[in-house]
């Protein structure tokens, strides 16, 4: 099989998965007990108004037809109107998604920058007390409830120490920077607004730390076990015999090879980031998708729940596709087979 065929197969699978995602989100949204038409029309609305609402929302049509209509609209980028905000869902997603992406990226940055060296240190000092201590940190990371960690950090840094702001993305009185990416830190940097940048940075610190700590454990673990495996390889022994310094062997030879399997992790981590973002955003009142979808759930706002689930899954599938493809390019063994 040529590399092209492998890539095509992978793409076909991704399309299949996306279709499955659409079917699943659609089915779930129609399982919701309670009547969205009644909810939207108001508690005291007459039966006639509710009926009219049902017709406007297309809820009176048979399910397959509703699904077909949904798919048709989707092709035009129309995700329906949110029952809660009464805005197009696609507009809401455009409005709230950058905040979530910004938070996720900041968390990932923290997790990688801290997790990579800690994982390497753990692998090099395998079975020592240092390794045990670092293992404790990484297991703590995957065992800690993100929503609880967020509360504790908020209490410590905002309430007790008073050195970091509590909630939101910017201080009061500071305007959002001109929109380029929708990520306040990046936009403020691009516009050269240093006060805004500072405000955005201190606001994102705690949520990013909360969300990042959970992923820190996963990254440390992955790097540690990959490094241990690589350090036992013959070429590492050869390099040692050749008189290379430990630092050069670890960074130049071992880490480079240990990172290849870790690349696939990044795609999967995004799922965890989304999961964590939903919880972290509610704690810090971070105006992103997580906050948005939690409010939508309490409102039975199925167009926006469906829109969020779909967009989140889509990003997840595409990211994993990109990761898989880059993995194929990175790993010479797979390239050779191809």
């Amino acid at each position, binding site marked *: 099989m040529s590399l092209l065929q492998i890539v095509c197969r992978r793409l076909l699978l991704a399309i299949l*998965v996306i279709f499955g995602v659409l079917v699943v989100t659609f089915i779930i949204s129609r399982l919701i007990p309670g009547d969205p038409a009644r909810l939207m029309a108001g508690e005291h609305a007459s039966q006639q108004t509710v009926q009219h609402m049902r017709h406007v929302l297309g809820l009176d049509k048979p399910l397959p037809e509703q699904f077909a209509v949904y798919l048709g609209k989707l092709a035009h980028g129309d995700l329906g109107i949110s029952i809660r905000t009464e805005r197009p869902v696609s507009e809401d997603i455009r409005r709230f998604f950058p905040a979530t992406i910004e938070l996720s990226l900041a968390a990932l940055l923290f997790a990688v920058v801290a997790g990579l060296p800690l994982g390497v240190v753990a692998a090099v000092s395998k079975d020592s007390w240092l390794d*045990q201590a670092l293992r*404790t940190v990484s297991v703590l990371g*995957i065992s*800690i*409830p993100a929503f609880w960690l967020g509360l504790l950090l908020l209490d410590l840094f905002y309430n007790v120490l008073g050195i970091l702001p509590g909630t939101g993305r910017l201080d009061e009185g500071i305007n959002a920077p001109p929109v380029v990416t929708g990520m306040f830190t990046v936009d403020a940097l691009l516009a050269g607004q240093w006060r805004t940048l500072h405000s955005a940075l201190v606001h994102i610190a705690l949520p990013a730390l909360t969300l990042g700590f959970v992923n820190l454990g996963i990254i440390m673990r992955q790097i540690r076990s990959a490094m*241990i495996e690589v350090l036992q390889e013959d070429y590492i022994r050869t390099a040692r015999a050749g008189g290379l310094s430990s630092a050069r062997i670890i960074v130049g030879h071992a880490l480079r090879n240990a990172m290849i399997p870790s690349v696939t992790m990044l795609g999967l981590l995004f799922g965890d980031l989304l*999961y964590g973002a939903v919880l972290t955003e509610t704690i810090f009142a971070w105006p992103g998708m997580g906050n948005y979808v939690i409010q939508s759930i309490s409102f039975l706002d199925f167009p926006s729940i469906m829109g969020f689930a779909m967009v989140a899954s889509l990003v*997840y599938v595409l990211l994993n596709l990109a990761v898989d493809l880059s993995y194929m390019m990175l790993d010479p063994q797979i390239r050779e087979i191809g």
Partner: protein
Amino acid sequence: MPRTRKSAALAPALQRPFVSMWARWGVDWRYVWYRLSASPLTVVGFAIVMTVFAAMILAPVVAPYDPNRLSLAVRLAAPGWHHLFGTDEVGRDLFSRVIWGSRSSVVAGLITVAISMGLGTCVGAASGLSSGWVDTVVMRIMDVLLAFPSFILAMALAAALGPSLMNAIVPIAIVRTPFYVRLARGQALTLRDRAYVRAAESFGSSSWHVVWRHILPNSMAPIIVQATLDIGLAILTVSALSFIGLGAQQPTAEWGAMVANGRAYFLDQWWYPTFPGLAILVTALGFNLVGDGLRELLDPRLRGR
């Protein structure tokens, strides 16, 4: 990888099927203890899990108060001699509620894993053995489920089914099932061509008998490890769903829901959300440490030195 003579002699025993391990008790428990004591964290994990189980079973004995008894005179009391973890906004003893809470949070985690493990193992083994189009269809469905950000799916399902602890368990079990399907399928694929399976088939054993007596018992070791690691995750996820209001409802003592209720008071009454959250952390930590230890014990590749 230098190996001691002792571990070399025992290696086959440990790789031997889980069920036969239990049936024959042929494992050198001294060796198991030797491996465990080399990793003190695993022992800590075991101690935590045992304590949690004890608290869960002995809740009526251990808890000093009725978890649902209101006592407005002592509302929001700080931790002290009478109330170890303090009290909540209606004067319920938080220590008693945390102890009783294990019966919802931990039991929910255990049920979740039992469902996904049972379902996933059966579907995976059946899929791996049937091969052909059944296998393809099952695995593509699993791919779709795996491609979903699982918490989002669980959240959407729980919202659709209506908030309750049971409705939080089912979606989490569903989204974790594909992991067991993959594991069991992989095991079934490698096992079905083994000589003893072929032999059983040639003797005319029914396929049901082959699966039940040969395939499943021999597939269990990695599945049990995965399950142990999953219990911590399941407890976290159940409590997360409860935290956002999609799990246990009042007045059930459940850790995630207690943190959610305590959230409004955390600036002045730090103990309210802190202790239930700590219970989640410590319990998940215990199961994760045990799962890690089991994995190292059973995975020959990780059994270095």
